[in-house]
């Protein structure tokens, strides 16, 4: 491989007419492409000198075959010069700053020298010169007479896209060119142009470069008809008008006709470069579709930059629907056999893997751990088929390569869009499985933000040993369990994992020998611990005792669970407390966090795999369901809730009364109306909370919904309150609902009604069902929520794009400094403290108390 070269500098400039002519391998005259026999016409737009696209032909310029020849430029000699619309604004700026008579910049010599020096200095400091240029243009435009020749300088009017007027007289492109040509080189330096690279008169085109056919290939339809590229169409238009112009000019046609044709030529050249210039209608295809010309090829989301350069399509990748598999490790990904047979990993044959490779090749491309290709030592590649597999297997030699199927244990990258953080792409080990979906462990749903309502995910197979090693060390799920966002676990149990562990470790839960064995078997533990005790002559085990088997033997830990109860682990035994989301849940797992930081990622991962498997088995064994009847409340509860609602209604009525009597005392800093609203909101909030506690009381701790809410598995008590007791106040913009008709929200209410129902309080529960007016208010509040999320995602997405663009090239060097690509220091120490948040303890470098506790063996 050739030694990589360093780029010294990049110079941007304009193509001069001279260069365009030098670049061109042929001139183009005829607006036709192919003759009747289907051969390209010489001096036509498909001239064979411009390169080859048809297989089997050779380029007339370089002799290369299609794919080898990059194509060559041609040229069209324009019968009359035209303005390049992309530079129209710059041309205007220059004409406004220079004298039409002598071409000099309307600044004094001293001023010019000053600007030149300033630009020189900024350039040497590699600083942008934009501000100086802007100043120079602004200064030069000010004077009304030319400082060097004394002639009048009248303002140049500009008519998009390419019209220039001086004293209401249109300037023809020839005049513009002559004017620009008069500007001296030294004056160009003042406005920051390098006259060697970009003379202003080059912005008026005398000769048009014709792009090679390789960038505007024609395609043959099934009907055998040729269909030309949009650029070719545009070039045909240019050539036709050019020809007509020439004929008319030679025939001595009247000036009016000449000018019309000139205008038309200008239009075609402008749209050739950019078909979305404002001020002129876009050129259209016969079918009415706007043409996709130069600028459109580059611009925007579907342009060359964002679509083809920033975003490339790759080989060795797969995408399909995902589904859950609680029995594979978080480190693994289930890959359908059909995909495993398509994606390959290259085996480099040595004496040690020759026999394995032989077996693999022998199995062929269709039976699973087989192979698709062999590459001989000389680089020749051959597809393995059912027919040649035996022969090829026989011939295999050291030094050959075999592209074998993906198999169990291979490291692959797994990704779900939008890739918002680094955990959106993680490395997994392959598990080849039947069926057609990619399978993942439920614990990795939070980092990917995945669910299974039809989500699809991508899979990539690293192709070199280095890439595989790097992926495994840096990106493997177990190495990504601590989030760089807050220094705690982002991967952990969810939903049933939590409910299951909660039920398993319930105080007084008992399991007989069979059940205990079965549970621990899920964690790969085949020996039961000592039984907790005897009942009716049979030994029994407690859920907590069984769960303790998953913990390291020397683990000590104390924390409070999400209900505020203490959890104590001593010597690897769960002494007190119950497992909930604070134990090993995603975003909050304390046990998981301690394991990660004190026992290492492998131990933590093993614990998570086992604990979730055991929890799932426990919840399956114990049974768990939630349905409409779980929201049933006894009649007594209904009466109590109704009482709460009535009394709240009364209290609100009283408040309104006192307000209307003018007896309400305003809260400092609030108006009377605001005070009333706040008091009412407060009252109604309390009413709903009371209804909630009544519901909670009657639902009881055994209710599935309550279990899920209390354990932190899913949902909250508020959700249950809304379902069983009362939905509560609906709001738009943080206020009770006020909009609608004059002085009332809906025609169902009296004008000026400030009561609860008229302002969007929903007394009913979701289970009872809402009244029509309640339903309407609920829809209003709901709509606001939807709009808010839509707006938020759009805004945060754009903010992230800008942040990434600004920060992507910064990195932390060995000495801890943060530097950009020019090695300029941005931060003396990363984050001021040099701490990698994903290796920190919730943002802190060390938890001193925890260490002291572990060293001294004393709890604080």
């Amino acid at each position, binding site marked *: 491989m050739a030694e990589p070269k360093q780029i010294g500098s990049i110079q941007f400039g304009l193509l001069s007419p001279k260069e365009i002519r030098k670049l061109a391998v042929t001139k183009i005259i005829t607006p036709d492409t192919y003759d009747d026999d289907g051969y390209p016409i010489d001096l036509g737009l498909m001239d064979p000198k411009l390169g080859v696209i048809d297989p089997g032909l050779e380029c007339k310029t370089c002799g290369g075959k299609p794919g080898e020849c990059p194509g060559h430029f041609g040229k069209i000699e324009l019968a009359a010069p035209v303005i390049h619309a992309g530079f129209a604004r710059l041309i205007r700026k220059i004409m406004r700053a220079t004298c039409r008579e002598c071409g000099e910049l309307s600044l004094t010599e001293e001023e010019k020298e000053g600007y030149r020096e300033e630009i020189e200095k900024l350039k040497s400091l590699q600083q942008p010169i934009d501000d100086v240029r802007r100043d120079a243009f602004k200064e030069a435009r000010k004077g009304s007479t030319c400082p060097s020749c004394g002639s009048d300088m009248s303002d140049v009017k500009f008519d998009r896209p390419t019209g220039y007027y001086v004293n209401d007289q249109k300037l023809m492109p020839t005049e513009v060119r002559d004017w620009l040509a008069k500007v001296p080189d030294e004056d160009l330096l003042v406005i920051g142009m390098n006259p060697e690279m970009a003379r202003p008169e080059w912005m008026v085109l005398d000769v048009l470069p014709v792009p090679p056919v390789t960038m505007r290939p024609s395609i043959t339809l099934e009907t055998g008809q040729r269909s030309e590229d949009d650029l070719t169409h545009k070039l045909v238009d240019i050539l036709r008008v050019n020809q007509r112009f020439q004929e008319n000019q030679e025939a001595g046609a009247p000036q009016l006709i000449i000018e019309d044709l000139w205008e038309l030529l200008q239009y075609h050249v402008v749209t050739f470069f950019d078909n979305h210039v404002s001020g002129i209608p876009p050129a259209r295809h016969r079918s009415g579709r706007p043409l996709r010309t130069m600028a459109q090829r580059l611009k925007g989301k579907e342009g060359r930059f964002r679509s083809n350069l920033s975003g490339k399509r790759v080989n060795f990748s797969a995408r399909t629907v995902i589904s859950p598999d609680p029995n594979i490790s978080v480190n693994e990904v289930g890959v359908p056999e059909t995909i495993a047979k398509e994606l390959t990993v290259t085996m480099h044959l040595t004496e040690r893997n020759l026999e394995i490779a032989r077996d693999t090749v022998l199995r062929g491309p269709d039976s699973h751990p087989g192979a698709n290709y062999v590459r001989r030592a000389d680089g020749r590649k051959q597809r393995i088929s059912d027919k040649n597999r035996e022969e090829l297997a026989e011939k295999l030699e050291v030094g050959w390569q075999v592209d074998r199927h993906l198999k169990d244990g291979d490291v692959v990258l797994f990704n779900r869009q939008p890739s918002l953080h680094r955990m959106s792409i993680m490395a997994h080990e392959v598990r080849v499985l039947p069926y057609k979906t990619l399978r993942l462990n439920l614990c990795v749903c939070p980092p990917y933000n995945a669910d299974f309502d039809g989500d699809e995910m991508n899979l990539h197979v690293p192709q070199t040993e280095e890439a595989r090693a790097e992926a495994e060390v840096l990106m493997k799920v177990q190495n990504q369990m601590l989030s760089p966002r807050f220094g705690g676990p982002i991967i952990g149990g969810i939903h049933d994992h939590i409910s299951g562990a909660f039920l398993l470790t319930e105080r007084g839960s008992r399991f007989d020998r069979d059940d205990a064995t079965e549970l621990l078997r899920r964690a790969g533990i085949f020996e039961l611990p000592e039984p907790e005790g005897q009942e009716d002559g049979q030994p029994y085990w407690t859920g907590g005792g069984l769960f303790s088997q998953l913990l390291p033997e020397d683990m000590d830990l104390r924390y409070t669970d999400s209900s505020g109860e203490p959890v104590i682990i001593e010597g690897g035994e769960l002494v007190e407390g119950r497992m909930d989301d604070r134990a090993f849940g995603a975003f909050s797992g304390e046990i998981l966090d301690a394991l990660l930081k004190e026992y290492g990622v492998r131990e933590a991962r093993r614990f998570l795999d086992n604990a979730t498997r055991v929890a799932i088995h426990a919840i399956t064994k114990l049974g768990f369901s939630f349905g409409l009847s779980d929201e049933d409340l006894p009649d007594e509860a209904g009466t109590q809730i109704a009482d709460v609602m009535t009394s709240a209604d009364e209290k609100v009525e009283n408040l309104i009364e006192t307000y209307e009597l003018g007896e309400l005392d305003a809260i400092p800093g609030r108006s009377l109306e605001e005070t009333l609203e706040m008091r009412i909101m407060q009252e109604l909030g309390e009413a709903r909370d009371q209804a909630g506690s009544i519901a909670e009381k009657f639902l009881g701790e055994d209710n599935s919904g309550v279990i899920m809410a209390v354990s932190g598995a899913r949902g909250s008590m508020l959700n249950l309150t809304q379902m069983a007791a009362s939905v509560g106040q609906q709001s738009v913009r943080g206020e009770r609902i006020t909009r609608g008709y004059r002085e009332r929200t809906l025609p169902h209410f009296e004008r000026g009604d400030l009561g609860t129902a008229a302002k969007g309080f929903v007394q009913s529960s979701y289970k009872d069902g809402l009244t029509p007016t309640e339903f309407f208010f609920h829809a209003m509040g709901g709509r606001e929520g939807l709009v808010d999320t839509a707006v938020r995602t759009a805004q945060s997405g754009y903010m992230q794009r800008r942040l990434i663009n600004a920060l992507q090239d910064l990195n932390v060097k060995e*000495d801890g*400094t943060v530097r950009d690509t020019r090695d300029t*220091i*941005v931060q003396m120490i990363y984050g*001021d*403290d040099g701490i990698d948040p994903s290796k920190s303890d919730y*943002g802190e470098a060390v938890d001193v108390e925890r260490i002291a506790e572990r060293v001294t063996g004393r709890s604080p």
Partner: protein
Amino acid sequence: MGKNYEVSRHDMVPEHEVIPGEKVEELLETYEIDVRQLPKILVNDPVAKEMETEPGDVLRVVRKSPTAGVAVSYRLVIER
């Protein structure tokens, strides 16, 4: 606001101090950099102006940091 208003006395303005030449050399050596690779501050920055710094001076800035308590940074004074 009287004439003797000093920005450097404001609570939100971190401590700035010009460091002597030999210290600059030391600093550049530890980071293996050229002066131009340091973060910059304009001469007409209110603090730099108040301290009557010259382009080429290096300022030591000590600010309070939510992560590290105190964070030290250096800035090269440059011309506008």
